[in-house]
């Protein structure tokens, strides 16, 4: 057995992983590709800021905060994106040496751990989002940055985090179901061969 892409997950499934292994993953990749164009937009507005500041001596008050918000949101989305095509970094010292069956078991453990991880994140993200959207008096007021421009980016970024960790929870769930069925198929195949 050859193991190739250590950055990605299981070598035997890597072609699927590239495209996403289910509908949700593929959807995330498509949306992620679309959103990634915002990186170029960020470059454009940062350039605009420099031009305005140096040529027209009129710095904007919105570029800096907008760029931080867009960048921050994309970093968060990138987590679901890299989960969809299985590109999160692993230490593969042992992972690559074990049998295919053991690797399935390891993957099941990773997906379960991922469910615990994102499950707790959903709770935490809900708490910080709620307190940035609802005042202690119960009114809806989006937390702002407090600058002279005062956009609602802090509360929006917290909401982005909440949405993304919810999506990642579902991703892990679907991956778990998929992994279990693969293990079953492997066991089935094994029984016929032996």
């Amino acid at each position: 057995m050859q193991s190739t892409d250590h950055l990605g997950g299981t070598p035997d499934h890597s072609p699927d992983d590239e495209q996403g292994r289910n509908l949700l993953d593929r959807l995330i990749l498509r949306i992620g590709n679309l959103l990634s164009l915002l990186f170029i937009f960020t470059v454009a507005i940062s350039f605009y800021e420099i031009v305005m500041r140096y040529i027209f001596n009129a710095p904007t008050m919105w570029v800096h905060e907008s760029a931080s918000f867009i960048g921050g949101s994309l970093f968060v989305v990138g987590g679901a994106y890299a989960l969809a095509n299985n590109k999160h970094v692993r230490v593969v010292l042992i992972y690559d040496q074990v049998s295919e069956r053991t690797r399935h078991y390891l993957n099941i453990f990773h997906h379960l751990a991922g469910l615990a991880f994102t499950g707790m994140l959903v709770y935490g993200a809900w708490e910080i989002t709620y307190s940035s959207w609802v005042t202690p008096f119960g009114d809806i007021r989006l937390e702002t940055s407090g600058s002279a421009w005062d956009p609602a980016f802090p509360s929006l970024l917290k909401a982005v985090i909440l949405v993304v960790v919810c999506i990642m929870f579902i991703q892990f769930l679907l991956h778990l179901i998929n992994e279990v069925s693969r293990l079953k198929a492997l066991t089935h195949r094994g029984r016929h061969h032996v």
Partner: protein
Amino acid sequence: MFDLSSLGIGLGSLAMLVLLIGLLLTGMQLAFVTGLVALIFTLGWFGVDALPLVTSRMYSFVNGYVFLAVPMFVLMAALLDRSGIAVDLFDAMKKAARKIRGGVAVQTLVVAVILASMSGVIGGETVLLGILALPQMLRLGYNRKLAIGTTCAGGALGTMMPPSIVLIIYGMTASVSIGDLFKAAFLPAAILALFYVAYVLIRCWMDPSLAPLPSDEMQKEDDAKQTNYFKALFFPGLTVAIVLGSIYTGVASVTEASALGVVGIMLSALIRGELNVQMLKDSAKSTMQTCGMIMWIGIGASALVGVYNLMGGIDFVESVILSLSNGHVMGTVLIMMVILLILGMFLDWVGVALLTMPIFVPIIVGLGLDPIWFGVVFCLNMQVSFLSPPFGPAAFYLKSVAPKDISLGEIFSALLPFIALQIIVLALVIAFPQLSLWWK
């Protein structure tokens, strides 16, 4: 539910370390390991109510303006890769490099130093070199490990050579002059780069097979190709001038200068007739990919640091250091170095800086040592952390753009000699503080 806090901070620290390493070895994604351990300890130590601590740190981490420089440099490198600029540049340099054994590796380091004096982060730079230099050396049949190590260690110089985000964060945390830190870091950075060059030349001199000179055929092929030197050197030169110029003449902050770099590359590609929508789309896509991977590792580490601080890790580490060294000056420094090197194996530099500097700097100042010198020493330690496994950001950055058949394991083993060189320079700066403070 088992109350972890009954372990006490000593056993708690140990349990955290064991859990961390255990999970890492199962092959679980690094970003999720640190994040999960952070959540487990938050839950077990402080209870359910404290869980938002982790998401709050996640929010703060991704919201940092300075990190915007990372996608900018990644985007710049991705665009560079898809234009013919990089290939032309290296082709043009080929004639000068082919006379020397290991010439391309030396050239890579020269380019790395130039890039390092433009950028203050390591990500974009490592990626850039991984795209520019590594394939070139592999094509010439260079020893793979030498080629990989040169690329990665060279890329990491980005935060050693001023300007440097590591020094800026250190300066903010330790409340010392960032300008002084920049001055102090320059010579040690140059020494480190020279050590790399010397290492490459000596190894190639001892074993010429490590770096084959291009065959006559290849040389003829090159000569026949008729490089357009103006085209090859003008556009990269223009881009370098834009980025360098914007930082040093003061047109822009580091983040903005990186945006200017992207615009520079786009303009060059446009003039060369290479710019198209597909190229922009592909570059943006790969930026999303790389950033998602890197930033989530940062998120996990940052969360872990926050929880550990709340557990009382700060006081614990301080008391351990002082009791181990018995107040002996050099002993204290050495213990700190060991702690930094070990933490650097598992955490990102932001985490290490936030975790240790609040404890270390007051001790250093109390011992009568210079915090500027210590900033340089810290920065050198972080050079090691970029390369040391299992969490070596420079290796991950390189991996994200290296040919598929280069494994993370191969990258890390290629980095070992370069880590040794870094530790030698670190020892030199500790033994001879004048190397960083000569200008005072």
